[in-house]
């Protein structure tokens, strides 16, 4: 089984656009906190605004 989330959020950093990984926060924008293939558990952070 899989879960697909699609959501709207304020635009993040340019790097976040290209690779998904922010590498650094941008005030008010969306930033990912995950990497492809990473194991994750319920309640852990995927990203933040």
């Amino acid at each position, binding site marked *: *089984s*899989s*879960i*697909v*989330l*699609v*959501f*709207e*959020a*304020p*635009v*993040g950093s340019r790097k*976040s*656009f290209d690779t*998904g990984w922010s590498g650094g926060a941008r005030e008010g924008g*969306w930033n*990912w*906190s*995950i*990497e*492809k*293939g*990473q*194991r*994750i*558990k*319920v*309640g*852990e*952070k*995927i*990203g*933040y*605004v």
Partner: protein
Amino acid sequence: LRYALRNTKVEWYPIPVGVGIGLLGLLHFYRTRRNEKRLQEKEALGEVWENEQPLPRRRRIRPSGPWQVQIMSTLPLKAMSRLWGRFNELPLPYYLRVPGFKLYSWFFGVNLNEVAEPDLHTYPNLASFFYRKLKPGVRPLDPDTRAVLSPADGRILQFGLIERGEVEQVKGVTYSLDALLGAATPSHADHSKKFMDHMREPTQKDTENMIADEEFARMNGISYTLPKLLAGGSSPQHETSLDASTSSEKASEALVKADLARGDGTPWYAPKPTSNNALYYVVIYLAPGDYHRFHSPVPWVVESRRHFAGELYSVSPYLQRHLPGLFTLNERVVLLGRWRWGFFSYTPVGATNVGSIKVNFDSELRTNSLTTDTAADMAAAEAAKRGEEYHGFVEATYRHASRTLGGHPLQRGEEMGGFQLG
């Protein structure tokens, strides 16, 4: 012959699983083709009675891909899944439960220290063990309130920004967001029309409902400068929009039209071009040994759900690499709503070995059942009769779940449902 039968040594060998599935697929394919041919012959001779006509079926999409995928697409996957589910609901002998579940846990990597009920005897069958609960506190929520949390245990398959309405599956294969979530339907306009009716006859009761309806209309693409309701309080934009709507019936009807297709041709779920927002996506894969209940990643309001009957292909990373648009072929429940930054959707996708999707706050929802398949077939036939396009899903709304929010509210980390065997 007698001599040969008596003296020939007979040895039995198990057929490999792959060959067995392949043969089953070929047999099913042969039988389908034979029945179709027979019906065509009868039709040509004018011998088909009305009650012999097969039930109108949804057009099944034949996926493209390598031969493994082609064979898989001929299999009765849903029937197999139901059979598998029934099998797993059979009670296990008491003394086999502990060794059986321990073997399963060892093979699929289940951490038994996290299971809420440590006495494995209490799980009567594999289905109940599969849908196990975890001990309180073993999945702490990230303290950052700005965060989107993981909805389930699993592996991140893909994530990123949605550009030109397309979601990347894996290895560069993309599929359209419309195909995944479904396009805007007349039902959206119906809801908006109801809202407009309130505007025409504003009674006290209607005034109470206005806020919810207006928010719903916004979610579906009319305005999309959504009030940050969950962050607390309504914005000035919210109030202005409400007042403006009450003033003119003409403007209201324009909004209904805009609900289905925006003037600039952008899809209904897209953020308003003038806003500084974008659409993001993430795909999480749950392996057989993972905890199979799913939770809310943010505080949000679910406004509607769409059940796509689809098929039940496996969603393993192998098949995702080889079957383009896998998620748009599979049975899935699309939950649509909004959070503090705008549109939010949550889509559990079913698979052959899992079976059904449960949503705790939706007792009407039945997935992977003959009833829903038949209902979907009939809806497709009805739409064809009316000369309309069948959108491929059955939709329900939660607008009355909460008068003030216009949908079903969920807290971050709240359990929403899960995947069950069968």
